[in-house]
Every structure is written in C-alpha cells, then in structure tokens.
C-alpha cells in the first residue's frame, strides 16, 4: 500500500491516483463541514461563503474556544459519521469541484460511483482519535456561519494531516462496504456455529 502527500487545492489527478487502503497526508487547507451547514447550502440554497474548487472537506464539529471576534482556537477537533450527509455528495463534486471528502464510517455505493465519475476520493479519518488530529491542525483560519456553532464552516490550516486511509477511490472501490459485505456473507456460517439455523 502506497503513501501519498498532497497539497491543497487537490487536482483531479491527485484524487485519481490513490487506491483503497493507501495512506494520505494533506498539507494546506481543510474545510470543516457537517449536517447543519450542508443543509443550509443545499436545502436552504445559501451559497457557501468559500470556494470549494479542489477542496478537501472534513466532517467535523470541533470543540473551540473563542479568542476574539470571529477568531477561535481549537480545543479538540475530531471527525464525525459521514453517512448522515451522504446525499450531498453529488452536488459537492459536480457543482463545487470538491476532490476529497474526509470523515468516518464511509459513504454509500452511490457516492462511490460519483467519486469515480467526477474524480474524487474519500479519506477515512480515524474516528475517536481526535487528540492526534487536533495536533495536526495548525490554525483555525476562519469560521463562517457562527450562528450554527458548533456546526459552522471551519477553515483549518493543516500540516502533515494524516495518515488517513483511502476508504473510497476513484476506481469504484469502497473498502468499508467491501468489508461489511464480506461480513454479511459470513453471517450464515457464524450463526450455524452458534447453533442458529
């Protein structure tokens, strides 16, 4: 399995280069997004306050401390379940040019197809290991939509952010899905071992 170091903004070639299981480190800008702010963008049709062309988006809702007007320090930045915002993948890739989605738990088969079509990847950030993640965030450069706190849009500057595991590549593979399907296929055998038929 290969290791990649990318700078943001990402190119389509970057996103198409990686394969499931590889590890990726990012340098540059990562935007924190999640339920409430994506609902505002896509369901309430409010244009995002930032340009997401080539962007890496992280599913998060950090613990922060306000240190000045619009200025925040991170206390703990971690990753949240991606599936809750799965339905926004298409618009993010097609209309906004997002190249990497970072989160935990994976995305749907539909999102996998879209990543292949548009050239994007899903990086599985290690859920629960927020302490490690937090130290890789150099600064919260900006916070948009403070009224949604903690579900604001965050602009993080990161350094050696990773190593995160490629969960979905642009070749149509989805590691978490494959693992779950294999487990489902094995269930009959495991039940039989426990005497359940």
């Amino acid at each position: 399995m290969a290791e990649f170091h990318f700078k943001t903004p990402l190119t389509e070639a970057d996103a198409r280069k990686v394969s499931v299981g590889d590890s990726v480190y990012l340098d540059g800008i990562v935007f924190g997004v999640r339920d409430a702010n994506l609902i505002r963008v896509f369901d309430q049709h409010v244009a995002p306050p930032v340009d997401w062309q080539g962007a890496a988006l992280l599913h998060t809702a950090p613990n922060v401390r306000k240190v000045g007007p619009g200025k925040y320090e991170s206390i703990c930045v971690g990753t949240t379940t991606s599936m809750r915002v799965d339905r926004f993948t298409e618009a993010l890739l097609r209309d906004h040019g997002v190249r990497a989605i970072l989160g935990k738990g994976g995305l749907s088969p539909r999102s996998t197809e879209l990543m292949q079509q548009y050239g994007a990847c899903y990086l599985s950030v290690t859920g629960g290991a927020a302490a490690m993640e937090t130290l890789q965030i150099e600064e919260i450069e900006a916070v948009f939509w403070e009224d949604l706190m903690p579900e604001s849009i965050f602009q993080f500057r990161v350094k050696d952010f990773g190593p995160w595991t490629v969960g979905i590549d642009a070749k149509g593979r989805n590691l978490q899905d494959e693992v779950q399907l294999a487990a489902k296929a094995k269930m009959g055998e495991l039940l039989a071992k426990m005497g359940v038929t």
Partner: protein
Amino acid sequence: MEVPPTFYDLVETTCRDLYIQSLKEIPPDVVAAIKRAAERATREVERRIFSHYLKSIALGQEQNMMVCQDTGIPIYWVDIGGKLRLDGSKLDAAIVRGTERATREHPLRSSIVSPITRENRQTSTGERIPIIHYHFVPDSDVLDILFMPKGSGSENMSFMKMLVPADGVNGIKRFVLEQVVGAGAKPCPPTIVGVGIGGSSDLCMTLAKKATTRPLGTLNPDPQLAALETELCEAINQTGIGPQGLGGDTTALGVHIESAWTHITCNPVAVNLQCWRAERRRAKISAEGKVEVGF
C-alpha cells in the same frame, strides 16, 4: 447519616470534573483491551488504525487532551446508599449544574439540542438531559456516581426488538449478530456490545446501555449468560469488520449482557453499542465529603 449542607456543592464540582476528565482519560481496562487488539493485528490498515487509537489515548493521559471530540449525551448512574439522608431534588439539581459548569468552564462543545427546533443552549443540558438513573444500595453510606459521555456515533447504533418466546435464545443470537454487522464502521469499532435481555421495551434498552458500563474482562454472574457473552463475542470477532470497519480481527472488545425477567408473552432484546474509547468515570462520595475517583 445526614449529609452536610455543603454536600450538594461537592456533588456539583464532582460531576463537573467527572465530565471533563472522562473525556481525557480512557479507563484502564479499555486501554488494556485496545493494546491487546493492537498486538494481535496483522493487516497494515488495521495496525495503522490501532496506532492512532493508542496515540490519542496517550495524548489524553500525558497532555490532558480530549481523546475524541464528541462530548456526547451526559448520562449519570447514581447509586444512593440507603443510610444516606439527603434531599433528592437538591442532588438532582447539583448534577445538572455540574454538567453545565463542565461545558462552560472547560469549555466543552455542547452537543445537546431540541429534537424539533434543534436549538442548542450551549450548556449540554435541556429537557430531561442530563439523563440520570437512580438506584438505591442497602447498608451503604456512599453516593456512587458513574458518568458516561455517550458518543453519538455509537449511540445512533441502538436497536431493539420485541422477539416472541418461540424465537428463543437463538433469536437473540441472530439479532445481536445482525445488528453488529449492520452497524459496520459507524460506531467506531471495536465496540463494547451491550445487550439487554428481558424486561419491558424501555427497561431492555436501559439494560443494554448499562451493560456497556461494565468493565471489560468481567462476565455476567449468571453462567448461562456468561457463556452467551463469550459465544457472541467470538462470533462477532470473526466477522472481519475490524477497527473503523476497514477490516481486521477485532470488532468487539467485549459483549456484555444484562437481563431482567419479562412477561410470559415477551422476549425483548436490545443492542446498544459503545465505541472503542468507551469513556466512563466514577466518583464515590462519602457522607463526610471524601471523594474517591475511579472507573
């Protein structure tokens, strides 16, 4: 034994400290289980994930950092010694104040909102939150508070079913295995699989949640249930789901069952998953105001 008037202030600051510290120090039984699983891991991705878990555990311990960002739903299990004479309503209010102070003073992200308006008071409290379970312990003069900041990734993986008696224990085995496989990566595996068996629907789910608070390495005192715990744990660990659902040999750190008797027509089963960080923290407060902290 009558508690002094300062007792409630002590409960308040103790609950504040429980909330904050529970997010930073992973219980020793959980750390040991993660270490064992990391040593067993053979695949590259699996080893990578466990190394991230161990790094974050160490940062929590050594640099007093929050291990995971989710401040969770605050849940307290309060065992009141039968010999204590105290005002229950003041006790209740003190626990709520402690929760709010943790949120404000640390500060912690408030994860609690109205289910309809989604309003967040930024206090980690709201209607019926924190959740407080009271029990009474005969012959004790101690107030025993067990706190858990229940993470939502695993809490969202909660399932219950009113099986019928004809489904038997086999129905229970099937249900548990199906839910763990269905949850896949979402609850941040390897998890502690809490299973409630019996009772009414509401009690059954409470038992499943309570089961996740039991330290790893302990078995249900009933030998039949203990055997069921072991059997289910082995089966779950052969599913190959692994840490973060990316594949591996450890999917559950343990399966814990708690049970209650039920109605002749009922066979309820509930599953409540607890993520790998499995945070919990305990304080025992004596009537004289001595506080002993543990897990």
